């Protein structure tokens, strides 16, 4: 069950010829796969491509009708290995994930796939998580294309162009027997647009057909001497075939302009930002035209030398607009022109920054320098505002009611008691513990690698590191790389696995230990059993909201004499998903006149002294501050706003940390039982009389 429902998007997948598709680009790409007769689809969710997976996960009936196999892969490596079906069979397959992290995980299988070569089109749709909003280290997918000889499409983010790229991507893959990567940046994925829909095409040859007619070809196996031959094929056959296909189908676009002395070569994905920068500078219009000729690389690897030579020839200089580093394209263009003995000057990273996102403003700056417009103007963000303190930053944090909050508050309190610990963090919502107010976690090494990154710090039985891991990371990679590894090597650390029931950070997708209903998935697997199964003997389950139990267990794990790895499975359902699950049920109960109990928390202003220690131990978004109405107090007081979901952590923290008596809970029971109402009436009568008496006195 993902965070939102994709029913209307699934309906869009059924559009046919004559209809207009309207929606996000990533969903248009999703639809385009079906129009291209894809036979199987897999992938691992992650921004910005999660929706592709989410929509297909909700579209099983349609996929069944078309005979398309869909998997929510266990990891990107699984998804990449899935593409091996296209090595021997004329099956079109597509997989997706967040890059470069996912590509890193997948790269073993990808290398082997690229070496073997494919018969059916193999398309890898990558969300290039670079620049603003990215949640990962900043690298380029381009390097993977170069090292494995896979082709990289970076299409102009126009919806029709993207849909076309999917079709051409499959064809290119088949024409050159090479897997093709199609990358889309964050904003391009989430851009709304429209395109004329086509009918869906059921695959002519399905995965079941493949099972009926098994085939093998020893030349496609990754063993010598085939591998030597495969490397030769890459260079001597597949590459030239790809270049001629790209050329023939004019995949790259030449946009002519009046000027003959200068020109710009741009990655397709950056075309819009470039075009806008030209327009703002008065060098072009807002419809993609400019006086400066532009060569748009919808395919950034391999390059087409003839096209580049033709574009550069006769020009004084050309500018390469290429985001990220190293500047692979700029180097390649230089080499192409030098070898062709063309003297055109190549500009690029000399006028544009080597690292960082190419926003419109950044490109504008570079253009000004390139076109000799002189000084760099107001287009850089104002680093310094006339403020006495820097503008407060707003880092991401755990949601209101998040079950991980009491876990980290417990860890914080145990740290106070037993001293600070080395904490290895992991990918997922739990990584927010590295930010204020918890400030715990010294490294993040990869999904499910929290435990593994404490391997060197296994300790001596006295000093113990704590490793964190989410349930998503656990099933992705953590069970083997972190838990089984610790058991095998008898590492003496403590690993906390957060069991919130979903891959929460990527949108609440189901994982093997999810507890809901999912007919098509084998869920409700026990993390605890899996952990015991790989040889961990010290395993405890705790409910994170029970901070006393959690603290007791943490203390025990850190101080026990028992050697070997200690694993704590910390359970608490993701609050976002819980609210999505519970709210409709509550609304139904309310409407039907059934008993509904809701809880909200509050802070008594009269007893709050404004030291904010409750906030420093929780950081709940609904726990905030406001002016004290007490004229003698200067400090703002704590305050629970209306977004409170009544998880109770603030009250529990106040208890566990011995903070203050200001927290109170208001329990409201709608449609109460008769004895509840009777008791309330009794209390009201007597207390009312007592209060009257006090007021009269």
């Amino acid at each position: 069950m993902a965070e939102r429902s994709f029913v209307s998007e699934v309906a869009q997948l059924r559009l046919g010829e004559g209809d207009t598709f309207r929606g996000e680009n990533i969903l248009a790409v999703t639809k385009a796969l079906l129009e291209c007769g894809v036979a199987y689809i897999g992938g691992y969710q992650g921004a910005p491509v999660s929706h592709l997976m989410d929509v297909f996960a909700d579209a099983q009936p349609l996929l069944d009708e078309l005979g398309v196999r869909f998997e929510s892969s266990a990891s990107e490596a699984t998804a990449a290995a899935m593409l091996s079906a296209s090595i021997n069979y004329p099956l079109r397959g597509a997989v997706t994930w967040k890059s470069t992290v996912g590509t890193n995980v997948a790269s073993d299988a990808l290398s082997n796939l690229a070496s073997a070569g494919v018969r059916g089109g193999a398309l890898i749709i990558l969300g290039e998580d670079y620049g603003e909003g990215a949640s990962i280290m900043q690298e380029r997918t381009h390097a993977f294309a170069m090292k494995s000889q896979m082709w990289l499409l970076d299409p102009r983010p126009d919806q029709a162009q993207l849909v076309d790229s999917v079709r051409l991507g499959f064809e290119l893959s088949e024409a050159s027997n090479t897997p093709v990567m199609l990358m889309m940046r964050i904003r391009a994925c989430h851009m709304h647009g429209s395109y004329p829909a086509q009918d869906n095409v059921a695959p002519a040859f399905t995965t079941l057909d493949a099972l009926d007619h098994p085939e093998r070809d020893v030349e496609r196996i990754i063993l010598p001497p085939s591998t030597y031959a495969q490397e030769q094929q890459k260079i001597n056959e597949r590459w030239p075939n790809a270049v001629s296909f790209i050329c023939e189908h004019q995949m790259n676009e030449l946009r002519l302009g009046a000027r003959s002395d200068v020109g710009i070569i741009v990655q397709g994905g950056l075309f819009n930002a470039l075009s806008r920068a030209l327009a703002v500078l008065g060098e072009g219009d807002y419809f993609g035209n400019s006086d400066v000729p532009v060569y748009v690389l919808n395919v950034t690897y391999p390059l087409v030398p003839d096209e580049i030579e033709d574009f550069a020839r006769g020009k004084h200089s050309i500018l390469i607009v290429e985001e990220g580093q190293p500047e692979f394209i700029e180097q390649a263009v230089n080499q192409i022109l030098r070898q062709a003995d063309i003297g055109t000057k190549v500009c690029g990273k000399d006028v544009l920054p080597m690292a960082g996102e190419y926003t419109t403003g950044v490109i504008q700056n570079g253009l000004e320098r390139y076109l000799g417009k002189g000084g760099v103007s107001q287009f850089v963000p104002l680093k310094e505002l006339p403020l006495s303190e820097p503008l407060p930053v707003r880092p991401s944090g755990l949601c209101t009611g998040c079950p991980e909050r009491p876990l980290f508050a417990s860890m914080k309190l145990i740290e106070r008691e037993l001293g600070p610990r080395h904490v290895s963090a992991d990918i997922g919502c739990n990584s927010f513990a590295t930010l204020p107010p918890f400030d715990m976690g010294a490294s993040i090494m990869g999904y499910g690698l929290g435990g593994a990154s404490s391997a060197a710090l296994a300790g001596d039985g006295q000093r113990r590191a704590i490793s964190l891991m989410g349930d998503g990371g656990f099933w992705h990679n953590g069970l083997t790389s972190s838990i089984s590894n610790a058991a095998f090597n008898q590492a003496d650390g403590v690993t906390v696995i957060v069991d919130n029931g979903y891959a929460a950070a990527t949108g609440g997708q189901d994982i093997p230990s999810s507890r809901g209903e999912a007919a098509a998935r084998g869920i409700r697997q026990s993390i605890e059993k899996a952990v015991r199964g790989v040889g961990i003997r010290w395993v405890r389950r705790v409910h994170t909201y029970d901070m006393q139990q959690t603290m007791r267990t943490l203390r025990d794990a850190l101080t026990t004499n028992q050697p070997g790895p200690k694993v704590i499975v910390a359970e608490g359902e993701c609050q976002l998903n819980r609210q999505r699950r519970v709210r409709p049920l509550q609304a139904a109960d309310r409407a039907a006149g059934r008993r509904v109990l809701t809880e909200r928390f509050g802070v008594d202003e009269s007893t709050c002294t404004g030291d904010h220690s409750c906030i420093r131990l929780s950081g709940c978004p609904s726990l905030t501050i406001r002016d004290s109405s007490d004229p003698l107090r200067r400090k703002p007081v704590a305050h629970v706003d209306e977004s409170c979901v009544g998880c109770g952590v603030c009250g529990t923290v106040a208890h566990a940390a011995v903070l203050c008596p200001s927290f109170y809970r208001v329990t409201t029971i709608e449609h109460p039982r008769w004895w509840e109402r009777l008791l309330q009436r009794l209390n009201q009568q007597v207390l009312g009389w007592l209060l009257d008496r006090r007021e009269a006195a």
Partner: protein
Amino acid sequence: MDRPITLTIAALGGQGGGVVQDWMVRLAQNAGCTVQATSVPGVAQRTGATIYYLEFWPAGDGRQPVMGLMPAAGVCDLVIASELVEAVRMVQRGFVGEETTLVTSTHRAYTIAEKSDPADGRAEEAELWQVLEEKAGRLLAFDMDAVAKEAGSVISAAMLGGIAAAQVLPFALEHFEQAIEQGGKGVAPSLAAFRGALAAAAAPRAVQVAEVPAPAAGDPRLADLPEAVAVVAGHALPRLEDYQDSAYVDEYLSLLEPFLACDADDYALPREVARGLALWMTFEDTIRVADLKTRPERLRPYLEEQQNVVRVTEFMKPRMEEISGTLPRALGAWLMRSPIARTLLTPLTSGLKIRSTSLWGYGLLRVLAGMKRWRRASLRYSEEMKEIRSWLSLLARLADSNPTLALSVAESQQLVSGYGDTHAEGLEAFRNITATAEASL
């Protein structure tokens, strides 16, 4: 100019910026206007700041502008921010220029750093407003949060109202309302918030002045004080009377009296002493907490509830210090020393949840509050008074020799606040300051 009209929406994760975007896309399509939109969701959306960006091409000439994908300085026609600091962030990012109509909410959603500050870490609002007024071509400001709450809706609907009120986009009000209706969810409250926003945006921005409740005048004892001090003491006197009794007020005034001669800087020192002394003398012991928790004005609203059953549960965790502090001095001191007695009382310190709307819970708290009459004999009282007297003695000695330091030491009283460990830490910091000041003499 031959270019699309741009709209930038700066929101916080969870505020429904995506809903505003969807409304805008739908209403533009209804109005036959070419529209393109994008956003940067993902992890940033978990409570972080995020922006949505749209471009409109109303010409209807079939031409499709190449969408910029992100706001660009110099072509930001309309920028709307759901929170004050986010509006300033738009300025910081270069998205607010002379061509820009900036619509901002006047309310603040404090960041974690601002909230975590042990004192007051909030950004200076006057400065933020100065930036906005200086940079924005045109500025519209209203409290979107208040508008939304009043309408029983969420902030996204108030933002849509702000977009309409700016009148930068070529859409009629009907288009906006139609888009809300087509959205299908919570239509009535959304419409109410939308219309509330239109009205609020039309009104001039109310400059917020912190309201200081007027002191209870009429206490004849105030007449003897210099006027500047009387303003503070006017708040202090009823508080002390309420805390203990009339004699306590006299005690306060006599402790304050020696400082009244220090008239420098409009009686800065006696004003600060009057404030700090009042707060300190009304320290929050268990008696005080029990009393505040059972005030009629606090409990009445819950007791008047007819429809539903409503219960209020207090979360209290007294430490042994609080329990012994409430007892008579000798008994309390013995308790702190006696391991057996402490063991017997341990269950009380493991955390109490007291239902103050139940007969039992209310009764318990009232019994505790009733111990007020013996407060002067309690261990806590004697300890606090000892600290207060040594603070005042230090201040008296500093007042002549080093008035600046005296004022700082007087202000540092605010470190002594809170409960439990926080109180202990604050007290330690306070003691360090007084010790340093003492050494300077």
